[in-house]
């Protein structure tokens, strides 16, 4: 009898916990739900008093406005989308190869000085990237890269976090696996692609996601390294849209733009979530 009672209490507590967590999820999701609902609001609903949370007559008008209204300025909105996709995509691809190769060396070759290099990388994890922005800007302008895609891509490739993540994962791959490939006569280059990269699919999937999300949302480097309207990336374009004249008239387009910027990272994360969770186990700092 008492056993049963205890069970009921436990079950009740559990139910309470679920209810609490679901309420919390609802609360944290509010701004996102609001963002989605606003993007589909027709013009008259945007300025209702009292303001409404949910859309009543959903319309795609704001999205058309976004794509056409910005036509009056020199650059079509699709250009910003292309810039963002191109820049983030290039960074992710280049960073993946460069950082994985580097991590492979630091983890498995260990040439003289490897531990020193790793210590430097580890300390690079410990400061905000904005700290180096001024000299980076000077280097970029000295190389004549201001207002080019190179300025947005090159400085973002060799990221301490990426090589750190990959090295932690490669460390878990047993050396015997590589030895075996050696005995089979495989070259180091082949081992890297056919053994290391094949085994660490979850790790580089993680790198792709983190790198994509970070660079997709980055607005600091576009702000600093570009001055021309044609080079702006999406987040920066949205901010200009928000700050420029005629904000009220554009608030529908703004909401639609916000939704457009926010959607790709969410979709990418959802696609790869299971893989991410498998990798992060290895990413702690061992002291």
């Amino acid at each position: 009898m008492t056993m049963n009672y205890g069970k009921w209490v436990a079950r009740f507590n559990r139910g309470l916990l679920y209810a609490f967590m679901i309420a919390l999820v609802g609360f944290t999701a509010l701004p996102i739900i609001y963002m989605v609902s606003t993007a589909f609001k027709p013009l008259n609903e945007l300025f209702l008093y009292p303001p409404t949370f949910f859309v009543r007559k959903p319309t795609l008008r704001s999205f058309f406005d976004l794509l056409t209204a910005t036509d009056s300025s020199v650059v079509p909105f699709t250009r910003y989308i292309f810039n963002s996709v191109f820049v983030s995509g290039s960074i992710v691809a280049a960073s993946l190869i460069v950082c994985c190769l580097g991590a492979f060396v630091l983890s498995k070759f260990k040439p003289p000085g490897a531990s020193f290099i790793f210590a430097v990388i580890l300390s690079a994890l410990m400061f905000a990237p904005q700290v180096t922005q001024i000299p980076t800007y000077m280097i970029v302008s000295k190389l004549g890269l201001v207002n080019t895609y190179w300025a947005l891509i090159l400085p973002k490739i060799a990221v301490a976090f990426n090589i750190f993540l990959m090295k932690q994962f490669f460390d878990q791959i047993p050396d015997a696996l590589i030895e075996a490939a050696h005995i089979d006569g495989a070259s180091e280059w082949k081992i890297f692609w056919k053994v290391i990269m094949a085994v660490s699919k979850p790790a580089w999937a993680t790198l792709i996601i983190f790198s994509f999300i970070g660079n997709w949302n980055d607005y600091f480097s576009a702000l600093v390294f570009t001055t021309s309207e044609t080079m702006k990336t999406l987040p920066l374009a949205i901010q200009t849209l928000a700050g420029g004249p005629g904000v009220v008239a554009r608030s529908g387009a703004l909401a639609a733009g916000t939704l457009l910027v926010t959607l790709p990272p969410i979709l990418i994360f959802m696609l790869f979530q299971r893989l991410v969770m498998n990798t992060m186990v290895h990413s702690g700092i061992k002291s």
Partner: protein
Amino acid sequence: MESSVEISNPLRVTAEKPKRLKLKLTQAGKKAALGYLFLSPFLILFIVFTVVPVIQSVYLSFTYYNMLQPAKWVGLSNYSVLFLEDDTFIKSIKNTFVFAVIAGPLSYCLSFMLAWVINSLRAKMLFSLAFYVPSITSGIALSIVWLYIFSGDRYGLLNNWMLSWGMISEPILWTTDPDRIMPVIIIVSLWMSMGTGFLVFLAGLQNVSPELYEAGAIDGISSRFQELWYITVPLMKPQLLFGAVNSIVAAFGVFDIAVAIAGMPSPNYAGHTIISHLFDYAFIRFELGYASSIAVFLFFLTFGLGRIVMKLLSSKEQ
């Protein structure tokens, strides 16, 4: 799968080693060369865009430099102006510390507790997605939503709700009243803070094998909180350390949310952070030497704090 097969016969590999030692010495040189070759793309880019900038920052911080004329050595004067005369900088330090001291530990603990609770629930994936999504949304883009929610007039969502529930009689100027700006920035940052650290904690928790809890139960651990303290936390030290370093850097690097909410310059500099100050001098006034001294200060601040946290978390173990 493949690797487990290979681990089972490491004997053969080690047995072969002494015989091939002489051959391996020359091979080692070749291997190192190849290693540097593979490492070189990373090293070159890392040196050009991370190491050199850090060193150059330190050098520039002792000069007056405006990009048009060559840098002029001024010794420590940037630093003395920074700490003794620049009231706005002192204000930005104060703001950043208030933010870091409140938002840093709070988001850190919150991420861990949420990860811990979620780990015991069903539909882990769904719950973690729900809490993680805010952190991957663009702070800048979503600021439009926040500005609407915290708008200072009656049309603002929060004001509107509070007015209709009778909690306030007049709309509150959330983003323009200097006393309210920091709290709003902190709330928005907390909402966005279930990010990388949170995911690392989740993964670390999944790594703790259930047998350890069973063993713990036999050893007399009776409550979930004892389990957390005596089994889970010690096992998650690497993840906890990573999360701590991550949240320190994030907390002291606060910038875009502050600008998005309070604008730049913010009313009475209430939302002015160290990075805002750096940005102001570097890319608006082009006083790059002075801005570099701010960067160097921030660098040593986060670096020192990171070291302290590392020491604290690793010494606890012994």
